[in-house]
Every structure is written in C-alpha cells, then in structure tokens.
C-alpha cells in the first residue's frame, strides 16, 4: 500500500517536473512526446532536455536513500549517515584537488571525489573507533575532520580565479546541471547491479540489527555481512557523488522518513530508496523553479534535510 502510494507520488512529481520550465508542456503532450508523438520541439524539450534530469533525480535520490538505509542499519543509529562521517566534505576536497590543482575535467573530479570521500570516511571511522563505534563520538570526530578539510577547501577556493571557484562551489553544493543521457545510463547500470545485491543482503542485515549473537545463531556471518553492506553503502554514495557532487542530508533523512511512514522497527530498504528518489525530485524541482535563477539541488537538500535533522533531534529529546 505504502509502496504504491510512493510510486504514485514519484510519477506525479516526474510529470510535474517534465511539464514545468520556460516552455510549459501539458500532461497529455508529455505522454505523447514520451511515446514518440507530439511536435519535434516539444519532443526535444521533454525527452532530450528534461527527461534525463528527472530520471537522474529519481535514480540518484534512490541511491542516496538506499545508502543511508544501509549505513543507519549498520551503525544502528539514525545519525549514521555518510554525510555525518565526513564523506561529503572529503569528496569535495578530492574533487577540488582534481579540478583546481590537477586541472581535471568532470571525469577526474568524479574520481577525485570518490577517493577523497572514501579516505575521509575511513579516517573518521578510525579516529572514532574506541572499543567500538559510539554515535556521538563519531559525530564529533566527523566535525573535527570536516573542519580541517573545510579549511583546506576554502583555501583552495580562495586561490582559484572567480569563474573556476564559482563552478567548483556549484559542483560542491551538489547539482544536476550539465548532466545528460550518458550519466543516466551510468547511474542506472550501477543501481541495476547494486540493488539486487542489497536485496540479497536484506535478510542478514535485519538479523544483524537484532544483535550479533542472535544473527550468528541464525547462521549469519556477522563480519562478512557487515563488510559487504559497508562496501555496498559506500559504492552507492560514491556513484552519486562522482556524478552530481555531494548532495547532502538525503541519505540521512530519507530512511528516517521511510521508517516513520512504514511504522517499521528497522530501516526499510525499498521505501527508503523511494523516499530518497521523491525527496530529490521535489528538491530539484524547487531548486530549478522556485527562485529567480536555478540553484544547485544540494542547497535545497541541505536546508530542508537540516531542518528535518533538527526536528528529529527534538523528537528524540522529547522521548528521552
């Protein structure tokens, strides 16, 4: 039921996004354009300009939601998102180094972002490790490492000439601008490969949520499952970051919203992915159309997601 509602909402949002813009297109024309009818102009606007962006918003959002769900299940903590452990700041550093120091293009920035994000996440994790991982320590260590990298990032930006710095800042906020069909294919391929793997691990993941002892007694290898899940979560996050730059707070908020909607005790994987896709669709529509000129979608997710984070905090506090 919930699933059907989420899918329906996603379709509506996609339709709205496809129809809005400088050239408004009626819903009937969109359908005609998608199946090959309508005038060539409308077809170009809908299929070639708007569709890749809409699909990317959905797919990237799904990847973020799924990655967040995996991380939150692994850390058994609603705050256990890749954003919190410095992945975003680190990937921004990696991309800035690739762009401003090594003079690389989008591909090199993608590679730099993945390397930077992974290295940072590992460093934060290692510093926060002390007989296990405790949520608050992870967050504070994340703040510290992010602050150092943030200072480095600001310095790199200050060195660069204005157009390069502005381009870097837009990328660093997380944006779907300038992406096309080849990116859709890449993201779709990655998701097609990783999603079945995640679904296959869903059952052992649930058992791990109940505690290692119980999981082991039901025949689940705790450390192997955990490692596999970690690799999956990171791979999903890294793909998004490489394509669009660090889009923050979706991975944090989507699984929590999905959990509330589903009234589930654990983090539901499929609904988290769908909520993530919905969030990014909505955020990108806002970023594109709500302001005088279009903004990077990441500025929307960080503002809305951050407010949600505050709300989450208040809720947890009231309950305690």
């Amino acid at each position, binding site marked *: 039921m919930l699933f059907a509602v989420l899918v329906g909402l996603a379709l509506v949002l996609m339709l709205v996004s496809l129809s809005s813009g400088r050239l408004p297109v009626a819903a009937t024309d969109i359908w005609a354009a998608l199946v090959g009818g309508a005038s060539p102009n409308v077809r170009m606007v809908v299929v070639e300009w708007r569709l890749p962006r809409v699909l990317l918003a959905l797919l990237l959002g799904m990847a973020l939601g799924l990655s967040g769900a995996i991380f939150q299940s692994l850390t058994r903590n609603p*705050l256990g998102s890749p954003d919190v452990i410095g992945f975003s700041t680190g990937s921004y550093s990696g991309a800035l180094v690739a762009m401003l120091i090594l003079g690389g293009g989008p591909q090199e920035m993608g590679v730099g972002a993945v390397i930077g994000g992974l290295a940072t996440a590992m460093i934060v994790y290692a*510093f*926060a490790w*002390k007989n296990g991982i*405790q949520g*608050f*320590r992870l*967050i*504070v*260590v994340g*703040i*510290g*490492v992010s*602050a*150092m990298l*943030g*200072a*480095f990032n*600001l*310095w790199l*930006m*200050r060195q660069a000439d*204005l157009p390069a*710095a*502005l381009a870097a*800042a*837009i990328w660093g*906020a997380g944006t779907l601008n300038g992406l096309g069909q080849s990116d859709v294919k890449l993201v779709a391929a990655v998701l097609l490969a990783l999603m079945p793997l995640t679904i296959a691990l869903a059952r052992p993941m649930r058992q791990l949520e109940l505690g290692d002892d119980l999981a082991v007694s039901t025949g689940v290898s705790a450390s192997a499952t955990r490692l596999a899940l970690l690799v999956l979560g990171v791979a999903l996050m890294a793909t998004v970051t490489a394509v669009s730059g660090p889009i*923050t*707070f979706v991975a944090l908020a989507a699984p929590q919203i999905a959990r509330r909607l589903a009234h589930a005790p654990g983090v539901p994987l499929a609904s988290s992915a769908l909520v993530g896709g919905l969030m990014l669709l909505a955020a990108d529509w806002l970023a594109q159309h709500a*302001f*005088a*000129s279009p*903004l*990077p979608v*990441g*500025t*929307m*997710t*960080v*503002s809305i*997601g*951050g*407010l949600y*984070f*505050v709300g989450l*905090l*208040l809720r947890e*506090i*009231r309950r*305690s």
Partner: protein
Amino acid sequence: MSMGVTLGIPATTRAQRAVRSRGRSKVLALVAGTVLLIVAMVASLLVGVRTIAPEIALQAFLGFDPTSVEHVIIRDYRLPRTLLGLLAGSAFGVSGALIQAATRNPLADPGILGVNAGAAFFVIVAVGLLGLRTIDAYLGFAMLGAVAATAVVYAVGASGRDGATPMRLVLAGVALSAVLSGIGSSITLLNPQAFDQMRHWSIGSIAGRDMHIVATVAPVIATGHLLALVLARPLNAVALGDELASTLGAGLGLTRVGVAIGVTLLAGGATAAAGPVGFLGLMVPHAVRWFSGPDQRWIVILTAVFSAILILVADVAGRLLIAPDELEAGILTALIGAPVLILLARRRKATGL
C-alpha cells in the same frame, strides 16, 4: 570547609598547598602570557613578505613619513592586522570560555555550536541580498545572527527534561550550521559578486582589514570582555550545579541572559571583522584551565591573553609557511584546533557527560 572535615588535616594541607601552587602558576601564566603577547604583537608588526627592521617600525609611529613604503605598511596594514588579532582572538576565546562555563559543556565553542555560522549567515544575507558592503552596515547583522543562533541552539538543546546536555547542544549546533550554510551558499551562488567577497571573508582572517574595521568592533568587543568579567563570579556558582547556584543566590536566569549577550557581542563582533574563526574558543579555555584552576575570573583573563597569542602566532606563521603567498589565520586555527576536538571526543569524560 566540609571537605576539610571529612578528609582530615593532611588532606587539607595538601589541598592548601595545591591551591597555593595553583595561585602561583596562574600568576606565572599571566606574566608569561603578557610577555608572549607583546612578542607576538611585535612579530606581527615586523614579520612578513617584507620584513621590517624594529627601528624603522618605531619611526613609523614617532615620525611617520607617508612617502616611505615601509612606514605605510606598518601603519596601514600591519598595525590594524595586529590590533584585530588582539581583539578578535581574545573575543573568540572568551566567548568559548563563557559558553563552556554557562553550559558546563567541555565541547562548547562558538564555532561548533553554530554561533559563528549564525553571524556569518546574517552577514551573507546582508551582503548577498541587501547589497551591503561595509562593516558598519553588517556589524549589526552579525550580532543579530549570533544572538539568533545562540537562542535557537539553546532552545533546541535545552528542551527536554534533563536540559542541555553536551551532545544535544553539539547536535543542534551542527544541524543549525548545516542549514545556515546551505541557505547561505544558495544566496552567494545566485550573486557572483557576493560569492567573491564571501569566499575571502568566510575563511576567517585578520589580514586586509583597515583601521576603520578595527575601530568599529573595538568598543563592541571591549564591552563583551567587561561583561565576561562581571559574569565570572555568578558563573563560578553555576559550576557547582544549578540547584546549589540558586541557593547561593546567583540569579541563574540573569546569568544566562548575560552570557547570551556577552557571546553575542564577542562572537558577533569578532566574526563581523575577521570572519568565522573556529576552535579558539574550544582549545584555549581547556588549555588555560591547567594553570588557572576552576576560577572563572582567571579563566577569562588567561583565555583572552592566550587566544590573542594563538591567533597572532597562527597569522604570522601563515605569512611565513607558504611565502610569498599567505595562509589565513582561520585555516591554521582549524588545522590546530580540529585535532584537539578529536582528542576531547576520544576522552570518555567529554562524551559521557
């Protein structure tokens, strides 16, 4: 008094000895700090891409010659820079000491709790949306932002039965900083001119500010310091716990309001002038407590001195490290301060509170 009774005489004399040696160590720390501060200020005047001889620097003040490049460097560049280091450094440090005392939170820092982010955000609004360009115009905005952020973080962190725990305050600060930076970057990305101005300002630096900026924030920061000293005694009572503090007659509500105003003046004023410089307010009060003991009056005084030293040393080091280019003081304080934060987080005391 009760301590002496329960622990017996030997313990009392040991405690007295400890108090006396603390007393000596804090006076020593103040003397050493003052000397170091003077050295740091002199170094800040003389050292740089163009190092200037002391006698020429002295001449620049005694017999200013507007045609001498070195005199102009001293009077128009190095002097405001040094004075701003003194003002902003001490302000960021003391605001941290105030928050730490008021919240009994070892991780409190205007940077971590989002106060600097609040001030920075309001400055971005002033520059990016309202088109203001000078510090006179946005100083008020910085302070408004600081007070708003303090209020929000405290309200979020303190709602709940057991009050503002360090964890909640930090989380509320992180969330608020994230939201504000997201909205802030939306504003600057829409306005390339504001983006250009903000990318320099937001690093946090005492370089390139003229005497006018220094003169504008000096009274604000000085008032904040005075307030911090006045608040020291009630905050000493707060350290004993809320209940004991109110039985001792310390007006808790009034003290908290005073702290909020002090933090606003100090962090808001310093951020308006230097940009958001993090971690001074975290590191320095912690380090200073080794010498000062728990007395808030000494913590404030020593923090003011050593924070100013730290930002000046960071600034001078930044001029030398990658000469002829410069590293901003805000970058160096983050590189020094973040490891301190990580160390504190790894200590059980800080996170287990």
